Each structure stands twice: as C-alpha cells, then as structure tokens.
C-alpha cells in the first residue's frame, strides 16, 4: 500500500477540461456507430415474442436462402454459456431450447444491407410452446411455480442470511422500534448512445477484432473466447468513444457476442446497431425491489439494531444478481455505527429481461428505505434529521460489523456543509405551504477490493512510455466512458512528475495495446488505476532523477523536479528535455509499469459473500433537497439541491462536480419519474418518450460542496466521486415531500398518480375518522 504522496498541488484544485473534450464538442469523436462500416454486413437479431417457453420450431432455411443474406445463426451455433460471474454463467448468446423473456435473442442474420436483414428475420419460422410466465417475485416464488432454471429451487438465484451483533438485544434496548415496507420500481441506465458493435473476423489469420460499447473490454474478451471457442490471444477488443454506461455495459452483452459469432459465420465484418427499444430490452439495470426494514433507536437518536429484508426481481438470467443482492445487505454498513444488523436477501428469477449493475449498484434502494425510516423515527422522537445522523457517525480508522475497512470518513463535514448552505436550521419548520426540505446521507465504494475473476494479478496496471519527443504516453485498460478517467490518469502522472499536462497522451482500453484492467465499474478507476498511474510515474521519476543526478554530479536524493526543471538546491538546473535525452542514451524509449493491489485486509470479512462491499475507501455524501408540491395536481417540483461529497481529494474538481451533479440528478430521475414497466412481459417503457428521464425543465440547480478527507491510501488522497451521492437523493426527496405535505410515501418513483392516491387516501381516512367521531 502507498500513502499520500504529498505531491505538489500545481495541477490539483485547478479545473481541468477533459483531455478528449475537444473531440466531443466538435463532433470528431467516433463512437461505435460512427466507425467506418461501409464495407460491413448489417447484423440484426430475431427476438422471442414469448415470455417463457420451449422452442419447438426454429427454421432458418428460407432466411438463409434469401439473396443478400450471408449468415444466419441460432443457438445451435453457440453451445457455451456466458455471464459476468464465473459462478453463475447461465445464459446463451442465442437461446437454446428455451426462451425465458420477451425479447431474448433467438437467431441472428448478417446481410448486405438493413432491408435484406430485416426481410430475412421475417422469413425465420419460430414456434414456441409457451410455459407459465412470472412477472413478479411473488409469483415466481409461489410453491407451484415451475422453475426457470432447474438448479434453482423456488426460482431463487441466491438467498443471503447475514447477522452481525445481537439484534434482539438491540431492539430490546431501543426506545422506539419501527418497521416499514418499501417498494422501489425497476429503472434503466438509459445512456443516450444506443448499443452498437462492430466485429471483424479474418478467416485467413483466424483473428477477431471487436470494437464495441463495453465498459470492461476484458470481460468481453474472456466471454468472446469462451463463446467462440477461440484462443484469447486471437482476439482484440477496442473501446471507441462511449456514450455513457452507468453499469449497462459492464457485463459482456448478448448482442456483442452475437455480432462476433455473425462475423465469424460470415467470415467478415458485421455491424450491429440496436434500436432504442432493443437497448432497453438488453437491460441489466436496477431491479424492482421490495424491502422490509425494522430499526431500533434510543430517544437520543442512537441506532440500536436493524433488520432488513430485500427481495429483488432479477429477471430471467443470473447476470450480476448474486453481487447485487449481497451489496443490498453489505452496504447497509459502512456509513453509520449500527451495533447489530440482520440481513435476509432473495434474488428471484422472473420472466423479464435480466437486471444487472447500475450506478450505486445494490446500495440505492436499501439506502432509500433506511434514510426514509430514520427520518420518520426522528420526527416521532422530536429529533432533527441532522442530529440523528450525527448521533451515529463512525470514527476512522475503523472496521464495520461486517468487517469492511474504513480509513477516511468525511460525513460529519458533509452534514455541516449542506446544513449551512441550505440554511436548514433557519428554514426547517418555517417553509411556506406546499414547500418542504428533506435530507439524507449516502456512500459508495471506491472499487470492489476483491475482483470477480480472482487471478492473483494486481487490481490495476498502468504502463508509461517516454520517448525522444519528451511526451509520455500512458497506457491503461480503464475505459473512459465519459466520467473523465483518462483525464484523471493524465493528471495523476503529470502531478507526480511535476510536468505539464500537455506532455501526456492517454491510450485507453484496447486489449492489444493497453495492459489489462478490470474496467469501469464500482467506481474503481480513480482509486486503483490512479494509484497504479502514480506508481508508474514514480518509477519513471526515479529513472529521470538518477539521470539528472549523474549529469549534475549530485546524489539522487538531493535532486528534485519542479515544474519541468531538475535541480539541486538553487544552483544547478537541467530542463526536462535534456534529462529525457540523457536518459534515452543507450536505453532508447523508456517503458515503466506501475501497479496497484488491494491488500487482503481490505478484501472483506471471511463470511460467505463477505467480499462484496469491501473496498479501499468509501466516499460519503449528504444532501438537502427543496421541493414544492402542488396538492391539486400532486405534481412535485424540485427547486434546489445542495450536496456535499467526501471524495478524499478532488484530483480534478471540475470532473468531481460534474459527477456529483450527474449522480444526484440520476437519483432524481429514479425518485421522481423513471420506471420500467412491463405488460405481460413486453416493455411499456422502451423509448425515450415512455422512459421518462428528466428534461432541462424538470432539473433543478445542484449546488456542490467538495469535502476532502485525504484518504491515506487514495491516489493523492482521492476516493470515488461518481456514485456516492446518488442514493441520497430519493430519500431526501421523499423526506422533503413529507415535510411539505405530511405524506410519507413508501413507493418509488414519487409520480403524481402515486401522490394523488396517497392524498385521496388521507382524505378518506380523515372522513372516516370524522364519521367515527360523530358516531361515538
């Protein structure tokens, strides 16, 4: 492990535009669909019209015979399963024997143009003998339900039972115990770029090159080798510019493997661009979640015990499900001091598109329930919401009840900052009718400390190449998907060497060129890749210092490099270029490697599933949301958000602000208006019209406050900044609605129809109470 380098802060605290920003604002940036595919065949997928059933006829002969069709493939063409978790790969790229959700890929066509490909799909004969289908967790878990997967009784993919501390004693010691049920709708990443993939198979060399929207080229690389039965060395995965991910593209996705299968079958190049509807159906997002939460509290607001039950409607295949249901329990920890916690989680198979990882993976719905219930209990006890949170703060360094490591903890300052900025004390309880304030806290991991594929390799490797031109090329497998990770790598290297950012180029995410990386997920890049980049830069710096020392006839420990000048005290100086030239004599271009590995003590408890939630450092956030609720139409307007985030240290404050605003806003979408709904398994939301992500007109000013707790192991002290603030928005909104109109909502999203139902119910209850009173 490395401690804070104490590097100079010349570049730090200065907002740095993205190093690939010019390409983006000029339209020069090439996303997958922008790559030259003029000579490529067009790929299209035939999707199951049925929710659940056995394929009895799948005849592609007419499609194959159509003029202009080059390849048609079905489940017969790939007998290998794929999946993101080595322990739960139960999905075929094209269904074999059985289909389990409407929209599941069944066959695929490569043809000379889109019209021909579409016509070919229409010529495929598909007959399915339908089986009962289950669209809710409850139906799928019914005793007489048939199984989606024979090895999973009760249609439960994974049940989790964890207990830490004496829960019953904790409840007995509480002054107030409350239990509530919450329900959070399924949502989707809805990144603006639809899925696309361009695959080229060269039959002469047997090599496959895939350019695609993946957040983790490495995972896709592994799955392509597995599903195509190829040597990994014959495959290359390249990430072009990517139009957002948010978790949608962490797993290898069916269409990516299908495109590669088509390319091999056609012995050529195939371009596949999914429609927005297909992009929604590919899914892998946050599941519909039912939560029962019981909490014990002393009259001073100390939490004494917590019991949580979570049921996730996971969809038809495993995907990330095991991790999601583990996160939902394990990330109850790590933010407050809760002496006793019992968790029961069920991940359920249903006949719907598979869920997966989405920003705030696993933590968001649990956090929502928790922060809502804490607020309500505070109200009942006559305590201020801020005071209750402050009564339960952790003190770093510490380990949680479930053995998660915490080395830095800026939540107290986050609370102070948003309390002051929102003028909470002056305003709470004095808001105009229909106006309300609400608050909540949240946190997230800076990368999973234990990787999914345990290989014994470091968690991150970065290569730096320094050559005759005095430029440094950083090679990283980490996928920049818009979050600015390549810019972060450049800053970390420039900072460590104390050289101009202009000397840096970053090449990212090409499995033929860049060292393997576990990819863009669980907010791991800044912490892990940042540390690896600094490690590499230090090694390079040592080489250059040694060279400079030789030239200056000084001891290396007396030489420093400040602003591209090597110097000994105030006397002898050497410019950077001269040192580089000297270092290259006899050696030629210099390549150094840096790495980062999470030590075993960071990798979580020894209990089953204990690795999930483990991390090198948690980010912490607090936010206040101000709302106006129109009681006539039941519409909610978010007027303003104040958010503070402890990101350890802001390597690029501009990007940190952008990530904070984006994550809070994404939480707002989930809280206010986004949900995926199915009509007998058909998506009712599969367009940008029906999937209602907020527009500019719905989006409030979001005031950001960066809190820096200087994590001792973070790169330059940094932790993650992209996910931690998301989970606080939904509960802060629901708490604000309660503050505004006295309605406690237990369902997300807080759409006008749900609020109207609650208002009508309240009026009905009031009438009933009056009637009863009159009668007595």
């Amino acid at each position, binding site marked *: 492990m490395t401690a804070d380098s104490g590097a100079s802060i010349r570049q730090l605290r200065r907002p740095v535009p993205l190093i690939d920003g010019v390409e983006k604002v000029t339209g020069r940036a090439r996303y997958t669909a922008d790559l030259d595919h003029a000579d490529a065949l067009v790929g299209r997928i035939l999707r199951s019209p049925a929710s659940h059933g056995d394929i009895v006829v799948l005849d592609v002969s007419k499609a194959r015979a159509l003029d202009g069709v080059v390849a048609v493939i079905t489940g017969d063409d790939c007998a290998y399963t794929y999946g993101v978790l080595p322990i739960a790969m139960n999905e075929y790229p094209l269904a074999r024997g059985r289909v389990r959700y409407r929209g599941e890929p069944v066959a695929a066509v490569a043809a000379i143009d889109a*019209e021909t490909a579409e016509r070919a799909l229409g010529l495929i004969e598909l007959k399915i003998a339908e089986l009962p289908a289950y669209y809710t967790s409850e139906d799928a878990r019914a005793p007489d339900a048939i199984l989606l997967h024979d090895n999973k009784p009760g249609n439960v993919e994974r049940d989790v039972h964890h207990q830490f501390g004496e829960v019953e004693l904790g409840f007995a010691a509480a002054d107030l115990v409350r239990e509530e049920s919450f329900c959070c709708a399924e949502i989707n990443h809805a990144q603006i770029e639809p899925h696309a993939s361009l695959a080229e198979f060269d039959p002469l060399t047997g090599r496959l090159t895939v350019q695609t929207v993946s957040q983790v080229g490495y995972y896709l690389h592994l799955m392509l080798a597995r599903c195509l039965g190829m040597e990994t060395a014959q495959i290359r995965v390249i990430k072009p510019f990517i139009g957002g991910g948010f978790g949608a593209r962490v797993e290898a996705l069916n269409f990516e493997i299908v495109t590669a299968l088509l390319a091999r079958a056609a012995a050529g190049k195939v371009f596949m661009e999914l429609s927005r*509807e297909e992009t929604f159906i590919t899914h892998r997002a946050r599941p519909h979640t039912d939560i029962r939460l019981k909490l014990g509290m002393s009259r001073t607001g100390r939490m004494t015990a917590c019991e949580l039950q979570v049921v996730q409607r996971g969809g038809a295949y495993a995907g990330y499900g095991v991790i999601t249901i583990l996160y939902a329990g394990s990330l109850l920890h790590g933010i407050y001091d809760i002496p006793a916690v019992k968790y029961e989680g069920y991940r359920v198979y249903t006949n719907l598109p598979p869920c997966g990882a989405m920003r705030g993976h696993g933590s968001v719905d649990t956090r929502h329930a928790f922060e809502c219930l804490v607020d309500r209990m505070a109200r009942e006890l006559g305590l201020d919401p801020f005071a209750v949170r402050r009564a339960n703060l952790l003190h770093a360094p510490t380990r949680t009840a479930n053995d998660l490591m915490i080395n830095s903890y800026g939540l107290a300052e986050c609370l102070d900052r948003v309390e002051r900025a929102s003028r909470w004390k002056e305003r709470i309880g004095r808001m105009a009718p229909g106006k309300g304030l609400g608050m909540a806290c949240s946190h997230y991991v800076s990368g999973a400390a234990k990787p999914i594929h345990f290989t014994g390799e470091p968690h991150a490797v970065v290569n730096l190449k320094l050559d005759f031109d005095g430029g440094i090329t950083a090679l990283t497998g980490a996928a920049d998907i818009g979050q600015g990770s390549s810019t972060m790598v450049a800053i970390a290297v420039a900072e460590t060497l104390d050289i101009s950012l202009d000397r840096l180029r970053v090449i990212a995410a090409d499995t033929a060129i860049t060292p393997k990386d576990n990819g863009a997920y669980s907010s791991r890049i800044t912490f892990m890749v940042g540390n690896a980049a600094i490690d590499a830069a230090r090694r390079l710096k040592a080489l250059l210092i040694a060279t400079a020392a030789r030239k200056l006839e000084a001891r290396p420990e007396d030489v420093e490099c400040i602003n591209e000048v090597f110097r000994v005290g105030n006397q002898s100086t050497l410019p950077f270029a001269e040192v580089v030239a000297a270092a290259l004599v006899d050696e030629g271009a210099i390549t150094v490697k840096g790495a980062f590995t999470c030590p075993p003590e960071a990798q979580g408890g020894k209990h089953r599933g204990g690795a999930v939630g483990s991390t090198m450092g948690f980010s912490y956030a607090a936010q206040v949301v101000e709302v106006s609720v129109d009681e006539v139409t039941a519409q909610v307007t978010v007027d303003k958000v104040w958010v503070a985030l402890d990101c350890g240290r802001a390597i690029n404050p501009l990007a940190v602000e952008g990530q904070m605003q984006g994550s809070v806003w994404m939480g707002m979408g989930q809280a206010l208006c986004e949900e995926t709904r199915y009509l007998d398994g058909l998506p009712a939301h599969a367009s940008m019209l029906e999937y209602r992500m907020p527009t500019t007109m719905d989006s409030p000013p979001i005031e950001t406050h960066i809190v820096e707790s200087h994590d001792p192991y973070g790169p330059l002290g940094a932790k993650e900044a992209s996910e931690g603030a998301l989970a606080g928005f939904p509960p802060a909104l629901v708490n604000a609605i309660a503050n505004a109109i006295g309605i406690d909502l237990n369902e997300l999203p807080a759409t006008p129809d749900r609020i109207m139902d609650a208002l009508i119910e309240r009026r009905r209850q009031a009438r009933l109470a009056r009637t009863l009173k009159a009668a007595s």
Partner: protein
Amino acid sequence: MSAPLPQFRLAAPRTVTEAVAAYRDHPGSRFIAGGTDLLVNMRRGIGNPTYLVDLSGIDELAEIRITDDGVTIGAGVTIAALAQNDVIVARYRALAQAAAAIAGPGHRTMGTVGGNLCLDTRCIYYNQSEWWRSANAYCLKNRGDSCHVAPQGQRCHAAFCGDVAPALLALGAEIDISGTRGTRRIFLSQLYVEDGKAHLALADGELVTAVHLPPDPPASAYAKIRTRAAIDFPLAGVAVALETSGADIVSLRLALTGTNSRPFLLAGTEAFAGRCIDDKLLNEVDRLVQKQVQPMRTTITSANYRRVAAAALARRLITTLGTAGAA
C-alpha cells in the same frame, strides 16, 4: 443507420388543389405536414403509406390572417409560429399556451396546426415497434382483433393527445376542409368522433386547410398534466374560455384532451351563465369533468389520476381566469 422506412414515393404539391389531386390519383396516399407524428409511426411500421403528399410547400396554408371577422390560421402554420404570434399571445391566450406546451422546441418548429389537429390517437399498446405489436397479436387499432385496453369492448380506446384542439374548441373555432368534392366549413367539434381507430370525421382524401376564430374572444387559458415539464404528451389537458360580467359568468366553455379518443367540449356548461364562481360551481364543474372524461389504461399513468387531475385543472383554470377577470 436507422431502421429502414417502408418504401414510398413523395409528392410536393404547391397548392391545395394539387395536393388533393395527388392524393386522389394515388391509392395508399397519406398527407404529411410536419411529419413529427407520422414519420415516428412509420418508423415503427405503423401504417405503410405508399405515397406521401407533402403539404409543407403549400404557401396558402402557411398564413395567419387577422381581420375584423376574426383570425384565420392556415393549417400549415407551424406550432412555433403560432406560439409566438403577437395577436394569438395577447388575445387567444389558451391557444398560445397550448402551442407552447407541445413536445420540445424542434417538434414545434416542424409541427403544424393542421397536423396537431389531426394527430393520430395514442395508446401504450399501439405506439410500439412492429416486433412488440406482433408479439402481442396487434390490436384493434392496427391489424388486430381486440383492444387490449378494454378487451370486452367493441371499439378502440386510444386517446387523442393534441394540445391545440381543446384550446380551439373552447374558443369556438371553425375549420375549412378541402377534398375531391370541394371545400366545406364545420365547427371544429364536428371533426372528432369518439373512436380511437377512426377519430376524424374526414372523408378519404380530405384535409383540414384552415382554422377560423371569432373576433373579440373571451379570456382563456390552457394547462396540461404530464409527467415531465417538456416532451410528454398530455395525460390530461384542459382549455377554458370564460366571459364574465362583474362577478357573474356570461359564458363558460371548457374543452379537454388526453382523456378520450377525441378532444371535446364539456357538456352542460351553459347552465353556469349568470352564476358566480364559487366553491359550489367549482364542485359542479369537477363532477361534470369527472363524469364526462373517459380515461382508459392507454398510458403508464393510471386512468384514475388522469380523471382526477383533469377536474383539478379545470377548477384551477376557472378560478384563475375568474380572479383575473374580476381584478
């Protein structure tokens, strides 16, 4: 590349007469104005016209004329032009508000008054891809045998979601229609039929060419309920035109959209003449609205909410206009 559109030919007439003739001469024709609704549906494989008659090049349709007899708005006037017209903004407030509340700025630039009046009806079972609809055995409105919203019923319940129509209905608009058998003028209310599959009382080959509004309109306002404050179609939209004399109502006209297969004038408001705006009256309006709207499960948002919200909007608009009028 986008999924291919069905193959069609495009005609670009310069006059209404030419447009009507082009339509008549080509079976399988459709008129296209802004195309913001038609092309989206065509991209989904809904309705495969083999011949599109483009109305956008017809200058005579693109004018707003203001005379002593009132205002004449060509069917080809864009929604954006309507929303920004000084006279409309100043005097026909409900119409300007309705226009400004349509979709997003790009749609308003392209979309036209005629197109919005003749907007196809919408339903969660209908505005879907070919794959989706085919997996669901289609629906009564398009290629199928039954309505998934009301399987027992005999008709299609797709909802009309145009915003301009209720404002024009409340303001007492008439429209001009041209077709192979000449032109005719009708009240706008006569254009619409309560049938989601055939909601326009236009003969084959007829098109709406203009809208006439009477001079000296009463005070008016339009408001709509939607999940987001832009882009979305109305879950319920209400237009009110209110003429008062002192505290008394001279006339109250109220029209709704988004709840039924047609936009319609609320029946029974004549009885409010001579009354003042008080809670009793507002409760009566509320009951009338809730009784006459027929929202069905055509949207993700519940039908009951749309019913209640429509009535709530009606109350609010009458109250606001009443207060403004009294001030």
